[in-house]
C-alpha cells in the first residue's frame, strides 16, 4: 500500500497532446476513478502510471519513490486490463501465479497464495482450466486474482467491467469495491461509465481532451460541478441546460428561463441583466402545481420505467446545445433535447401540453456562457 503523487504529467504523440499537465495526490488506500469520454486521456494516464508508456514530462512518485523512469516490473503495481489479458497457454493456476514466479517466490508459497486468492474470488474449482474454458465473469475473477495475489502497492484497473453484460457488471462492481475496501490497496480505476465512477470511487478525476476538469468526491462532482462539462457528464440522464436572464425582484435574485423563475446564488449578482446558462437536473423538475410560473411543454417522448418517467421535450430558443451532449453516451437523444425525470406521475403524459416547474428544494447550477465555468 502506498500513496501516489502525479506531478505535472504531460504526454505528446507528435503534435497531439494526449495529456495536459496532470497533477494528483492519491492517499494511501484510496479508490480513485478516472472518468471521461473516449479519447480524454484517462487510459493514457493509467498506462504512464503502469510504466507501459513513457511520460513526455512530469513525474510519478509511488510510496515516496520516484518511479517515472522505472520499468513496469519494478513499480510494484498490478494491473487489470479491459480484455483481461489472461495468458491463453497457461492454466488459471499458472496465470495467477505468473507474477509470483517471475519474482522468484518459491513454488510452495506460490501455490498457497494462489489458492488463497482463488478462494477469496470463489474460483478454486477452476484452477486447472485454461482461460478459453471460462466465461467472461470467471475470466474477470482470474484477472483480479492475478492482481491481488502479488499484494502490490497499487492496483490499476483499465475499464475491467466493460466486456461484461449489464447484470454481471453490477455484481462485479460491488465485488471489486468490497475487495478494495477489505484489502485496502490504493486503486486507480479507469472507466467511461459515470455510474461506475459514482458508485465505486472515493474520489473521481473527470477528464476531457487530456485536461483534468475536476477532482472530488462523487457528491461534490454531482452537487458542485466546476463547469458545464462535469455537470453534463455526471448524472444520468444528463443535466439540462437553459438560457436565463439574471434579474432581481423583491424576492431576490433569479434567472428567468423561458418563463420559469429559477432562484440563483448571490454570486450571480455580477451577471445582473446578462444571460447565463442555467443547469437543472432532470430530477429537479416536477409537474407544476397551481398557477406557479412554469414551462409549458409538449413531450416529444415519454419513457415510462414504472416508478418514474423520462419526459423528453424541446424549448426552441431556450435550450443550450453543448459539446458535452455529443460526448455523453447517456444523453438519450443527443443535442437539443431536455429531459424531466418525474416520479409518481399517475396519469399518462403523452399527447397534450404539460406544465413543468422546479421542485421546492431543487438547486440551479449557473454557468458563464463564455467560459462554461460554474458561477459560485
Amino acid at each position, binding site marked *: 500500500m502506498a500513496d501516489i503523487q502525479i506531478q505535472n504529467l504531460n504526454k505528446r504523440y507528435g503534435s497531439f497532446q494526449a495529456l495536459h499537465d496532470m497533477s494528483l495526490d492519491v492517499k494511501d488506500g484510496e479508490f480513485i476513478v478516472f472518468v471521461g469520454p473516449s479519447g480524454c486521456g484517462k487510459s493514457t494516464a493509467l*498506462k504512464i502510471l*503502469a*510504466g*507501459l508508456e513513457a511520460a513526455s514530462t512530469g513525474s510519478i512518485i509511488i510510496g515516496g519513490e520516484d518511479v517515472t523512469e522505472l*520499468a*513496469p*516490473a519494478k513499480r510494484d*503495481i*498490478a*494491473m487489470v*486490463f*479491459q*480484455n483481461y*489479458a489472461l*495468458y*491463453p*497457454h497457461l492454466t488459471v493456476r499458472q496465470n495467477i501465479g*505468473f*507474477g509470483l514466479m*517471475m*519474482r522468484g517466490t518459491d513454488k510452495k508459497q506460490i501455490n498457497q497464495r494462489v489458492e488463497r486468492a482463488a478462494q477469496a474470488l470463489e474460483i478454486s474449482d477452476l484452477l486447472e482450466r485454461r482461460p478459453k474454458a471460462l466465461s467472461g465473469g470467471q475470466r474477470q475473477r482470474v484477472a483480479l486474482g*492475478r492482481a491481488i495475489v*502479488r499484494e502490490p502497492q497499487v492496483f490499476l484497473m483499465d475499464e475491467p467491467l466493460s466486456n461484461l453484460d449489464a447484470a454481471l457488471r453490477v455484481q462485479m462492481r460491488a465485488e471489486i469495491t468490497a475487495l478494495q475496501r477489505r484489502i485496502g490497496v490504493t486503486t486507480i480505476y479507469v472507466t467511461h461509465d459515470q455510474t461506475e465512477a459514482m458508485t465505486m470511487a472515493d474520489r473521481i478525476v473527470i477528464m476531457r481532451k487530456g485536461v483534468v476538469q475536476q477532482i472530488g468526491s462523487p457528491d461534490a462532482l454531482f452537487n458542485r460541478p466546476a463547469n458545464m462539462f462535469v455537470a453534463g457528464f455526471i448524472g444520468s440522464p444528463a443535466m439540462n441546460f437553459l438560457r436565463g436572464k439574471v434579474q432581481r425582484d423583491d424576492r431576490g435574485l433569479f434567472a428567468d428561463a423561458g418563463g420559469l423563475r429559477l432562484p440563483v446564488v448571490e454570486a450571480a449578482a455580477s451577471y445582473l441583466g446578462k444571460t447565463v446558462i442555467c443547469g437543472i437536473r432532470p430530477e429537479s423538475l416536477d409537474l407544476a402545481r397551481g398557477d406557479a410560473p412554469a414551462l409549458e411543454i409538449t413531450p416529444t417522448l415519454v419513457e415510462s420505467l414504472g416508478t418514474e418517467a423520462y419526459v423528453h421535450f424541446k424549448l426552441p430558443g431556450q435550450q443550450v446545445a453543448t459539446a458535452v451532449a455529443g460526448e455523453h453516451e447517456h444523453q438519450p437523444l443527443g443535442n437539443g433535447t431536455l429531459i424531466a425525470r418525474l416520479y409518481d406521475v399517475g396519469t399518462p403524459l403523452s399527447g397534450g401540453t404539460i406544465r413543468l416547474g422546479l421542485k421546492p428544494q431543487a438547486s440551479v447550477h449557473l454557468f458563464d456562457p463564455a467560459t462554461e465555468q460554474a458561477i459560485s
Partner: protein
Amino acid sequence: MKRKLWQSILLYATVIVACAVVLFPVYWMVVTSLQPPGSLRAYPPHFLPPDPQWQTYIRLFIETDILRWMANSAIVAVTATGISMVAAVLAGYSLSRYQTKSSENVGLFILMSKMLPATMLIIPLFGIMRSLGLMGSLWSLIFAHATAIVPFATWMLKGYFDSIPNELEQAAQVDGCTPWGALFRVILPVAAPGLAATSLYGFVLSWADYLFARTFLANNADSWTVNLGIATFKGEYQTDWNLVMAASLLAALPIMIAYLFLQRFLVGGMTAGAGK
C-alpha cells in the same frame, strides 16, 4: 442440422473426386516405381502392377547415394528454416509491435523482395557465394534458402503477432517480465501454431528447391541434395523412370510425415492468424 441423403451423397462424392485428383499422382508414382521399365508405356496401362519390382527400392539404396542426399537436404532445410525463423520472429514481432514511420516501408520492402523471381536472385547470389568461397558447400544453399524464406516468414509471423493483443505482453511486463521475457515467455508460446505453420512452410520451400542446389552444388557430388541427386537419374538416351519415382516417393515422405504431425497446428495456426 440433419443432412438429407442426397446432400450426403453429393458431399462424399465431391470429397472422393477431390481426393482422387490430389492423390492420383502419388498413386501413379507408387505404381510406376514398382513396374519394370519396359511396361511403363504399356497400353492399356496397369493400374496395379502385375509383378511388383520391389528390388527397385533395394537398387536405390545400394546403387545410389540417396541416403546421403536426403541427409544433405535435411541439414539444409532444418538449418535454413532455423536461421530464417530466428530472423523472421524478431522482424515480424518488431513490425507488428513497434510502429514507426519507416516500419511500413521496411515491411513493404521485405515483401517486395519476395516478389522477385528466384532466377533474378540467382546471379547476384552466385557472385556472393563464389566470393565467400562457399560454392559447393551446404552453407551456400542454407544462406540462399534463408533469403527466400525470411521475407514470407516475416510477413506470416507479423500476421500472427498482429492477432495477439498488445495487452498480453503489457500484462507480462507488469507481472515482472522484461520486454524480451514477455516475448519468450508469453508471445512465442501463444504464437506456437503460427511458428509451426511458418516453419513447415520454410522447410518445404527448402526441401523442394532444385534451382539453387543445381547452381551452387552441382560440382560437388558429396553435397548434392535429394532433388539434385534424383535429376542425375535422367540419362541422355534412357531414363529409369521406376528408379526416379521410387526416389521421388522417398523424397516426399519427410514432408508427408511432417504434415501429419503438424496438421493440428496448421489448422489452428491458420485460424489464429486470420482474425482477432
